[in-house]
């Protein structure tokens, strides 16, 4: 089991404010209720006690959900969800009432940023030259995904893996995308793998692959090496057909699933905090109700990804201060219901690594860690509002998340600490040079101290990115930990659609290919 970090959660909302948000969400669920674009789901709601009416649009129902149905669903949705891993040492235990944080990657950026370095000569003084980074955007491939998963395996603070890059090779089709992306992930990291499904008809193939990896159907139930994300909700307040179908199937197969909603304050949800949070909370709860109607006790995770709309183009925005406000509130709501929470931090609106990206990322890494969310996704390498992924940025994010985790550590205040501190202070005061340096040695050599920023530059220029590039090269050269040969063979025999070039296994073969 991988230990998460237990934090003392920062409470932005008071108890009384949490109750108000809850009450507002209950009123929203009754009126206007939610739109449901899935016939079977509309039927389930109806039988469960909701008021269901046809709308003018064929295939779309208006569903008004009474408070009692929500309470019933919350009483059967499990408080504890276990996410397994290829290497059981990386399994995660999520307890809705226990604010224990884990950081992961995400999501499906279409572009990857290549960092190139070149030597530049100063025009004004040709005797001066320097090496500077430049960036090139290119479309993501299977090889990039393998490389990202291999990096993830080696990033200390990455607790679970969501494909950060969309695979867009020539040979990838809607039908073979799911098996290839899951295989690329599972073959290159032994941590928990989470993803959405592109084609719901591939579910059996993907689950079969996971069963082979876990060691059988029962073994997969006990050690779910994969889990799913589904954006059931299209804000405002609509459960869309395809994603609802996915939710029903995931729940019936009892595979953990993140029920995610991502409204944008100012375009698909109110911009005001209370309006946004009551709406997204109602949206997620409506899908939690559906999950429990479909399969009582199905493991679901409260997936809140509220963002702000950017006012000059209505794009989604992650660096806005409101982003943190919305997200912290949602984590508090999930905890109020005792559901494990999937939240968000670390996306930069900035297009390349630099000052802007660092500020944007650090603020949300810090606040969302303090919020006590169980799964903090999007946390590694994302730039340009999730549209671009950078491996170098992921390395920086790993470092910064490590710092954030240190800040969140519980204070050690007990009798022993008091005695020890008093003793040291008295000794130092009694000495001639009154310096504490020699008394740092215990902590220093126990590896508990922050030493220095590992990618520190010199005084002539900011060389951090150059050093990060070297670190990436080092990590790339670390040996892969592919799936055992007999498991890979079996997967290739029994799961259709895998690219032949993934057969060799190991990140290196794939990304040199």
């Amino acid at each position, binding site marked *: 089991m991988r230990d998460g970090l237990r934090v003392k959660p920062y409470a932005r909302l008071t108890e009384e404010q949490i109750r108000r948000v809850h009450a507002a969400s209950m009123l929203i669920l009754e009126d206007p209720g939610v739109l449901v674009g899935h016939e079977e789901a509309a039927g389930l709601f109806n039988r469960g006690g909701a008021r269901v009416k046809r709308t003018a649009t064929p295939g779309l129902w208006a569903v008004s959900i009474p408070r009692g149905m929500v309470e019933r669903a919350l009483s059967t949705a499990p408080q504890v969800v276990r996410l397994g891993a290829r290497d059981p040492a990386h399994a995660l235990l999520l307890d809705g009432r226990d604010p224990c944080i884990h950081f992961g990657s995400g999501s499906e950026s*279409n572009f990857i940023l290549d960092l190139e370095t070149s030597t530049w000569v100063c025009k004004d003084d040709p005797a001066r030259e320097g090496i500077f980074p430049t960036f090139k955007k290119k479309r993501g491939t299977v090889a990039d995904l393998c490389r990202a998963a291999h990096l993830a395996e080696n990033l200390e603070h990455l607790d679970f893996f969501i494909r950060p890059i969309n695979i*867009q090779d020539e040979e990838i089709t809607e039908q073979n995308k799911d098996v290839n992306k899951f295989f690329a992930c599972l073959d290159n990291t032994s941590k928990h793998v989470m993803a959405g499904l592109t084609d719901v008809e591939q579910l059996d193939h993907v689950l079969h692959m996971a069963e082979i990896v876990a060691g059988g159907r029962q073994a997969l139930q006990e050690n779910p090496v994969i889990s799913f994300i589904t954006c059931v909700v299209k804000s405002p307040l609509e459960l*869309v057909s*395809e994603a609802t179908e996915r939710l029903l199937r995931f729940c019936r197969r009892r595979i953990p699933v993140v029920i995610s909603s991502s409204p944008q304050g100012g*375009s698909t949800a109110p911009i005001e905090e209370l309006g946004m949070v009551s709406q997204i909370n109602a949206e997620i709860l409506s899908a939690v109700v559906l999950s429990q109607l479909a399969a009582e006790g199905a493991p679901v995770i409260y997936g809140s990804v509220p963002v702000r709309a950017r*006012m*000059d*183009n*209505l794009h989604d925005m992650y660096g806005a201060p409101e982003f943190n406000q919305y997200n912290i509130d949602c984590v508090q709501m999930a905890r109020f219901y005792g559901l494990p929470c999937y939240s968000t931090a670390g996306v930069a609106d900035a297009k390349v690594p630099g000052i802007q990206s660092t500020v944007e990322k650090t603020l949300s890494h810090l606040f969302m860690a303090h919020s006590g969310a169980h799964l903090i996704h999007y946390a590694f390498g994302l730039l340009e509002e999730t*549209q671009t992924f950078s491996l170098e940025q992921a390395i920086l994010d790993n470092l910064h998340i490590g710092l954030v985790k240190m800040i969140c550590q519980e204070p050690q205040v007990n009798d022993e600490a008091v005695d020890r501190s008093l003793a040291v202070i008295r000794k130092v005061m009694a000495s001639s040079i009154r310096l504490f340096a020699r008394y740092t040695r215990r902590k220093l050599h126990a590896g508990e101290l922050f030493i220095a920023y590992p990618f520190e530059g010199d005084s002539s220029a900011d060389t951090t990115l150059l050093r990060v590039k070297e670190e990436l090269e080092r990590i790339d050269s670390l040996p892969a930990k592919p799936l055992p040969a007999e498991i890979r063979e079996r997967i290739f025999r029994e799961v259709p659609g895998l690219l032949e070039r993934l057969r060799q296994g190991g990140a290196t073969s794939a990304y040199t290919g």
Partner: protein
Amino acid sequence: MRKSLAQGIAAGRILVEAISGGMEIVGRKFEQGEYYIPDMLASAEAVGVAMEILAPHLTAAANLKPKGKFILATVEKDQHDIGKNIVGIMLKGAGFQLVDLGVNVPACRIADAIEREGADFVGLSALLDTTMRYMGHTIEELKRRQLRSRVKVLIGGAPTSPEFAREIGADAHCKDAFAAVETANRLAEGRF
């Protein structure tokens, strides 16, 4: 608007001085960073409503050229519509007649609508790499039904690009709603 008409102010003058003049001010304020997209959408919506009231009062002499009918859709298997909706509001505000088919619209329904409505333009939106290809399918469908030469095809959405537009044989790629209005205006000039 109704008050001005009741006072006997000519519809053509209202159009030029109030509406076009107002939109110019709004556009300038946007460029100067004083106004934002919500302001632009509100103005475009106001113009849309004003034009409906004004239309019956405008005579041919008022030099109001019809800009044409614009069909807008998010392609098959794609639910994303924030961008498409912004484009729609802005086009309507710019004087195009808009028919919005919504999201997840298969190629054949788009072709049906073009035929039914006698559209001059079709705008396709896609936000997923997997659904982009349905833009190409839609154009193929238009060719198959001999509709392609009747309409100008504009495409947009984050994963698309000018190269992609060329590849699938669309007339233009637009990076945002402003580009959409500009391009549609340009193409409309050429048509009438």
